[in-house]
């Protein structure tokens, strides 16, 4: 039982980070109907920004850690907006395949630029939040998992509020449903798209920092596996569906953690792909999604 709870906490903590990344894929898909493969590299850039900002202070505190996150989130929001503006927007009227290939190109560009600028070797990530361990019976809850969970929950709650209760959030949902009708309301679709990229990228940065804080060795290719897994999480939840992405992230995080702790542990990295195949076979709309006919 103890073992079970321990694994569950680990799974939730990893899963909530997948959830943060998955939301970015799903947000962008919602308004533009394509998968932004460069998203996982924005996650990586977020971690490096967190490392550079975090190094400026030797003391770790909750406030300081949050400042580091905020800084990296702002930088990555801008990066996401720039990527959309200069790589994707000029191709808006082209085929989805063109944009998809461009996204892969942007991803490779960021990975190579990362190796050039940050260096190819793994680097230690500073301990930006104070550490502490809590113990209940045999179950150990490290402050790392606690920070990861609390920050992820607060961010997802904030996002949900933004999307459901604010004017810009409603405009995002309207534009995702029918961009032409949205523009007839006076909504500037380009602004909504920029905002969406900024938002998704900020969440990726938060995910990247939390990831680096939990697994404190970072390198320019660190985004590849979590990015792919989170993409599967978004598909699992129903691509385009925000609560679905969150749920998908948690589910995959938990499954992956339990597999890692079992005698099939060598398969843990393949879990996401096995799941992807199963979803596509049995429930292509995902857990919470409803499959819509392709818009033209």
């Amino acid at each position, binding site marked *: 039982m103890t073992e079970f709870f321990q694994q569950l906490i680990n799974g939730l903590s990893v899963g909530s980070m997948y959830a943060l990344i998955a939301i970015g894929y799903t947000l962008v898909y919602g308004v533009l109907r394509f998968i932004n493969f460069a998203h996982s590299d924005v996650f990586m850039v977020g971690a490096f920004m967190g490392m550079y900002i975090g190094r400026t202070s030797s003391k770790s505190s909750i406030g300081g850690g949050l400042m580091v996150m905020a800084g990296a989130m702002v930088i990555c929001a801008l990066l996401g907006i720039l990527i959309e503006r200069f790589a994707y927007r000029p191709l808006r009227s082209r085929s989805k395949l063109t944009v998809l290939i461009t996204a892969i190109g942007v991803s490779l560009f960021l990975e190579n630029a990362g190796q050039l600028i940050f260096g190819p070797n793994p680097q230690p990530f500073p301990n930006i939040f104070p550490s502490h361990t809590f113990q209940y019976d045999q179950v150990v809850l490290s402050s790392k998992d606690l920070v990861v969970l609390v920050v992820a929950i607060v961010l997802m709650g904030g996002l949900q509020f933004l999307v459901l209760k604010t*004017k810009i959030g*409603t*405009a995002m*949902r*309207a534009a*995702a*449903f*029918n961009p*032409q*009708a*949205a*523009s*007839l*309301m*006076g*909504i*500037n*679709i380009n602004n909504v798209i920029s905002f969406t990229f900024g938002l998704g990228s900020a969440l990726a940065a938060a995910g990247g920092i939390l990831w680096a804080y939990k697994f404190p060795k970072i390198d320019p290719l660190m985004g590849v596996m979590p990015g792919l897994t989170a993409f599967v999480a978004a598909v699992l939840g129903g691509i385009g569906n925000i609560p679905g992405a969150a749920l998908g992230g948690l589910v995959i995080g938990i499954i992956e953690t339990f597999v890692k702790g079992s005698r099939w542990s060598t398969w843990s990295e393949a879990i996401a792909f096995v799941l992807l195949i199963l979803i596509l076979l049995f429930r292509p709309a995902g857990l919470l999604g409803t499959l819509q006919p392709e818009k033209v």
Partner: protein
Amino acid sequence: MLEVKNLTVNYGAICALRGISLEVKQGDIVTLIGANGAGKTTTLRAISGLLRAQGGEVLYEGRNIANLPAHKIVELGLSHVPEGRMIFANLTVLENLMMGAYLQKDRRVIEQELEYVFGTFPRLKERQKQVAGTLSGGEQQMLAIGRALMSKPKFLMLDEPSLGIAPLLVKTIFEKIVEINRQQGISILLVEQNANLALEISRYGYVLETGRIILQDQSSALRQNPQVKSAYLGGV
């Protein structure tokens, strides 16, 4: 108020509008009738900025708005209720209406408009919390019109408001269109396949056929016109 001059629109190699001209005066109801595929929807979409025009001018209050982006055109007080209604089915009725008032910063003005829309379409008030996708066709049309009114337009374009709606509701909706015109002084350009109804409530009409205006006259005269009668009024 609105003057379209020699408007030309192509879809790739297909020429949908071959230089049409029409005019809507302040406070007027003008209708554009024509068979399916004549180019009515294309005309409205080109005016409201959803489509690029290849040639011609769209003068709105004396200013050429051809090829301004759609969101800039709404700002000028020109609102378009598109074909097929295009309500946001994933949003509630109230959220749809609020999107209509997207550019309005003044909360009091929004409240006033909302009250006016609810007064005009009480059904929308009853269903304001409901997800718009669950409304009936007629209610969705009311919502589409209400949403357009929320931007406090001076000029309203309606694309086939009678399409796919129960006859009884069609009558109500057309009465409301007249009421909006009379009470708010909003000029209206109405596109319809239901020529009977459209000519009944409008003052002036244009007949569009494969991208050309082939006839134009007072609506009362068009209703008596033998050519219009046989082609669009079912020979009545």
